[in-house]
């Protein structure tokens, strides 16, 4: 009885959470005339992929998609590469101010991002990369890196010192020890950090809005908004189709990585 009640509640929560997503998918395949019908229909009377066709071939959607993919992948690669080495250094090497450095890294989180936007924008202008994808990669790295560093640091702290020492004695150089022994052990941490960074860059809006204002360098978030939402009109059906397509890469990535994530977290405790 208790089980049934629990299940019922769980499913209610799932439905409430999922409803906007379901509505998004349904709306994206409804013909235009069905959108504003009163009373609204749940199941479309007629399924059309017209909105998707228009989105893909009559708008710069694919450019935005390409930008977003480049942006998110580069940010992820950069952040993970720097954070992995950085976290390793924070955990393994003794140098003055190491703890303080780790804390200072979190300092960026004390300031609301709106405060950082203008200095960052001026810096991009000064660097000569304003209004480009590169400026966004730099901006996203600046706020994804601290978190990634701390996340990976806690993962690396869980790797016994002796493993690296053993590799060194066995004849590996520091770099070899890092790649042969530390990296495979930190893999679950690296995967979750990548996931976090990717989602962050994929969904980011504010910086993209301020730092980039040409269509050729816009990512999906701001691109779709500026393209479909104007003061006079909101292209609901196209917006929904765009939203569906924006969710697809995340869903794919989650589907691929989830297995590694859970495997990574469970690996230590399971004797097999």
């Amino acid at each position, binding site marked *: 009885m208790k089980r049934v009640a629990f299940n019922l509640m769980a499913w209610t929560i799932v439905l409430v959470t999922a409803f906007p997503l379901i509505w998004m998918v349904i709306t994206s395949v409804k013909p235009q005339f069905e959108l504003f019908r009163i009373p609204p229909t749940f199941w479309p009377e007629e399924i059309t992929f017209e909105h998707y066709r228009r989105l893909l071939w009559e708008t710069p959607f694919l450019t935005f998609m390409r930008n977003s993919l480049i942006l998110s992948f580069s940010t992820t690669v950069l952040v993970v590469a720097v954070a992995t080495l950085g976290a390793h250094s924070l955990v393994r090497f003794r140098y003055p101010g190491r703890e303080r450095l780790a804390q200072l890294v979190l300092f960026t989180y004390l300031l609301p991002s709106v405060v950082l936007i203008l200095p960052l924008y001026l810096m991009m202008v000064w660097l000569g990369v304003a209004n480009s994808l590169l400026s966004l990669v730099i901006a996203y790295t600046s706020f994804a890196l601290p978190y990634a560093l701390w996340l990976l640091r806690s993962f690396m702290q869980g790797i*016994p010192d*002796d*493993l690296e*020492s*053993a*590799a*060194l*004695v*066995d*004849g*590996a*150089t520091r770099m*070899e020890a890092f790649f*042969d*022994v530390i990296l*495979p*052990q930190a893999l679950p941490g690296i995967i979750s950090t990548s996931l976090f960074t990717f989602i962050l860059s994929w969904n980011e809006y504010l910086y993209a809005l301020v730092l980039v204002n040409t269509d050729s360098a816009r990512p999906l978030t701001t691109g779709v908004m500026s393209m479909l939402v104007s003061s006079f009109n909101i292209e609901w059906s196209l917006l929904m189709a765009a939203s569906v397509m924006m969710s697809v890469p995340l869903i794919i990535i989650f589907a691929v990585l989830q297995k590694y994530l859970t495997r990574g977290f469970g690996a230590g405790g399971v*004797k*097999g």
Partner: protein
Amino acid sequence: MSAAGVTFTRVRKAFGEAVAVKGLDLAIRPGEFVSLLGPSGCGKTTTLRMLAGLEFPTSGEIMIGDRVVNDVAPGKRDIAMVFQSYALYPHMTVGENIAYPLKKQGMAKAERATQVARIAAMLKLEALLDRKPRQLSGGQQQRVALGRALVRSPKVFLLDEPLSNLDAKLRAHMRAELIELHRTLGRTFVYVTHDQLEAMTMSDRIAVMEGGELRQFAPPREVYDRPANLFVAGFIGTPPMNTLPGGFTDGTFSHPAITARFTVTGAPARVVLGVRPEDVLIGQGPHRATVRVVEPTGHETIVMLDAGGSPLTARAPAEASLNPGDAVSFALRAEKLHLFDAESQARLDARAVTLGESE
């Protein structure tokens, strides 16, 4: 590719304010089995890690063979190390673990396989080569760690408390195997432990350390029979040596329960008399004491006495029927008495001649 000696010359290691090793001088002969023995924090592990190249000495010189290795990377020192935690690479199979040092040497795959097979046969690991470390028992993991050290026949083996994670029975077994291994390989072994039994049974010589300093470096028998100072006297032996502080005038040691005449030159006024529990003979003798606690262990009985206000531990035969509160007589083996300077704690070269009860 033979054994090499190891020399520490005035080696000092400080971590910021804390000094882990204070000017260590130690010369280990080629092919010798040396234990670094001491309580935790005595600097023995730091010493071993400096020898491995995992820590850098703050000052001083470390030599392996006739080569100064202060600036040599761990992998280039021709050493192998077994860690307390075994430090097996969890994502590699047993075979890959053992082959790793060879791989880093650039050995070809086929040759590596031959070597791994040789080691696996030696340590009876053949059936486990494709397993991952976490699928092995503690004893098996220990053998893999040994195998990984053995595979490249290094000049010096470093072992950091390798047996401390095993259960008592397996530990006794592995002790015998390590002695055997040392004998067949003829290589230098440097073995860190806090377990005196391991040090006593396996070593050619024991380096007893305390507080970052070497307290004595001698064969096990000598460390036991002629401890160089009060620390070594108290650290080696279970139960430890009894130490009775007393005065010393005209060659006579005086304590409320014990007096003894010694032939000695230049002894200070305050000394400590040392006597091992097995050299306290309960039954008859010139001294008197009261029984406090009786601990039968099966093959013998440990008796704690109160001798003139000082605690005194004795080994008695298992049959001895003693009860707390009993008044007993006891004698000390004169030739087995030790005398230490109460101030400097150093051993005094003294021989007891007569023993008697104090008035």
